[in-house]
């Protein structure tokens, strides 16, 4: 069992998140890095589709209580290998867009960035309050075929999700 590496060895990372004000609304751009383990690659090569969610939350900081969640949304990607054409197909589950790539890295490249993601209208924010944007790339184990699921919870090779990262919203 490749338990030698630490649990984050194959975890995705949130590299960079930028929130800018364009006109009257805040938009977000982000970069991610995926580090697929051998087992994940092998499963994909054998036709198992993998699902990732890029989760985005907008939190309003509160002193007493826990932070209030203003926005909780996700972009869901499905990546699958097609043996006939020897290509990787990435599908955005939200809008149904399908992208085909001849290599895995270019397929992951699509999932590695989001551009101009509209976050919130400026007038919805209270100027005195502090806001933070929480971003996470999470691998959906529950979407794996049933026999793989228990293993995915045990084997670090299937710990592909990143942690939550917090990015301040500068006004």
């Amino acid at each position, binding site marked *: 069992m490749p338990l030698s590496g630490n649990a984050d060895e194959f975890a995705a990372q949130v590299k960079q998140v930028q929130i800018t004000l364009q006109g009257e609304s805040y938009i977000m751009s982000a970069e991610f890095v995926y580090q697929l383990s051998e087992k994940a690659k*092998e*499963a994909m090569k*054998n*036709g*198992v589709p993998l699902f990732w969610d890029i989760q985005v939350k907008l939190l309003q900081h509160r002193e007493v209580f826990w932070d209030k969640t203003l926005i909780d949304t996700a972009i869901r990607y499905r990546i699958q290998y*097609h*043996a*006939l*054409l020897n*290509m990787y*197909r990435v599908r955005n589950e939200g809008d149904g867009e*399908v992208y*085909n*790539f*001849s*290599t895995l890295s*270019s397929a992951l490249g699509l999932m590695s960035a989001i551009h101009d993601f509209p976050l919130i209208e400026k007038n919805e924010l209270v100027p005195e309050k502090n806001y933070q944007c929480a971003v996470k790339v999470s691998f959906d*184990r*529950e979407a794996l*075929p*049933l*026999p*793989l*699921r*228990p*293993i995915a*919870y045990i084997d670090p090779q299937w710990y592909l999700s990143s942690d939550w990262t917090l990015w301040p919203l500068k006004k």
Partner: protein
Amino acid sequence: MAPEKIKFPINLSVLILFGLILLSLQLMSSATQESSQLSAMYSWLLLVNALGSVVLLILVGANIYSLIQHTKRREAGSRLTTRMVSLFVVLALAPAVIVFYFSMQFLHQGIDSWFNVEIDRAMEDALELSQASLDQRMRWHLKQTQQLTEKLEDSSENLVTLEIENLRELSGASEMTLFSRQGRIIASSSINPGDILPSLPDEHIWLQLRQNGEFVAVAPIHEEELMIRAIVTVKALEPQYLQALYPVPVRIADLADSVEFAFVRYQEMNYLRNSLKVSFSLALSLVLLMSLLAAIWAAFISIRNIIAPVKELVKGTQAVASGHYDQQLPVIAQDDLGFLVESFNDMTHRIAVARDETRKAGVEVENQRAYLETILANLTAGVISFDVFNKIRTANQAAYRIFHIHVNQFIGRTLLELVENYSELAEPLKSIQRLLEQADDIWQQRIAFLGSNGRQELLCRGTPLFSQEGLRVGAVVVFDDVTDLIQAQKNAAWSEVARRLAHEIKNPLTPIQLSAERLQHKLAYKLDPTDADMLQRSTQTIVQQVLAMKEMVDDFSEYAKPSKKQTVDIDLPRLVQEVLALYALKSGVKFKADYETGLLMINGDPVSIRQVLHNLIKNALEAIDAHGLIEISLHRVQKNNTDFIEIALYDDGPGIKDEQIEEIFEPYVTTKAKGTGLGLAIVKKIIEEHGGAIWIDTSRKVGAGFIIQLPACNSEQL
């Protein structure tokens, strides 16, 4: 009989739990079916079942721990529970493990049998065939496109747009586009006039294109449609690229799709084969584990219920063994064990009743015994009982009072053993022992002996005791100190004698005396001198003897009349001092007086007490023949919780002979040549009339010693 209640060994909550376990397992089993709605909940179900197993494991563990503790403490029923649980676990475990083992075998073999090399090969071949077919089509389209470029080579940029339109229609392509080397669109034609922007090759294609000068690939346009993209270099002044998109016929695309779907599915299944085995094994193990643990737990509960009455019985038996007969056990069930418990309750109840009766009888006997003992203790007569070996069994208080021996301390010993410790009582004890040994019937005997308080006389009466079978089991001796009684009888007799003497003898004495004097007076001058002298001597003798008889009769009346006439408190040392003063002038006699400090008072008639002292001192003086030492001492002593003043008087004369000691206080007993023999008798009478006692101190070896004890005056009265 109480109405029978049918109780299930396992209660409702346990049944519900079993139901839940079965439901959970069933759900998990259903979830493993891919198509099932529950598939999404598979992980949760697995977790719930695992947690359930852990909970059951904890329950079973707690039960086992508790059982071990109980067994260590050797609690009632714990060993039986251990045996039953072990038996159940072994019986349940063995078939379950066998079924589990073979299920695993079948499972693995079953899964493996789905896959084999032929199908593997066929699947790969089918995919390869599809790929080959598409490949051929691609190459054909590439060649076709290359041929088309020749027509474009010489065309000017203006004409190209028209030419492309023609070429596209000619070739059957759905879209045709001419790019500059930098990727700029020079001309484009599409079967669909609505498409303004042609399909653009991505960077990867450009890279390949620049390397190879041509590119061909099948690409999916939409979900199901396939498109062959062929790009070739157009040899012109400035190299250009012609991209042509050819639609793959729907039928071929469908077939290829179908082949790919089947291949992917098969490959996925093949890939997941081991995971599938693992997950089925996991589910199976979980099912086995849960059902086994649940069964063991249920076994614990039901065995506990079965053992409960046995446990109670064991506890009850232990309680009865330690003497608690009031133990009543609850009857839990109306089965054989219930019957046993009922019988046990009956038994203990009867034992308790019998015990109570025995106890009551014992208390009755004890009360009787205490009653008898009280009576015995308060008897004035001494009572000593003996066993068959003539050893002392019991003795009462009066025995101590009479013998001055704590006879109670000699229980289990014979009277002869007492003799060793109390030699002064040797005579009566030996007599009683002898009588005990000899007598077969009731006997009675007077035994006289010299005790510490002088001569004592006992009236003993012995009765042998026989058992109901007629065997001799011992004897009881009752004895009474009759010394005082006999003395009183003697005194009364002497008093009577004295009274009669005074009355019968004294009266004729005066006429005798007068008659003799008259004879002398009338006949003296008528007789010759010789006869007259004889008459003179005879009448003188008569008168002298009459006077002596009168004196004797006076002494007797003195002895007969009561001495305690007027009682006052007497300061004894002073009285003794006064009496001694009268004898102080006697030469040759030395008096030594010793008085204890403090008040030494008695209540009595001073004249009588003075007479006592005179009589005793006179006796002593006569004994020492007016030369010697007379000691007199006064002490306070305590006897039977009463204070006495002891007067001890010793001389250093010849002493009293042993044979006289017993009767020296009797009237007419004397060692002297002259004297009436009433002196000591009067002393004894006076002392006894004052509630005291006098005896001869036999322990003194030189001279004679008299000890008088008189009751002291109460200090409260003083």
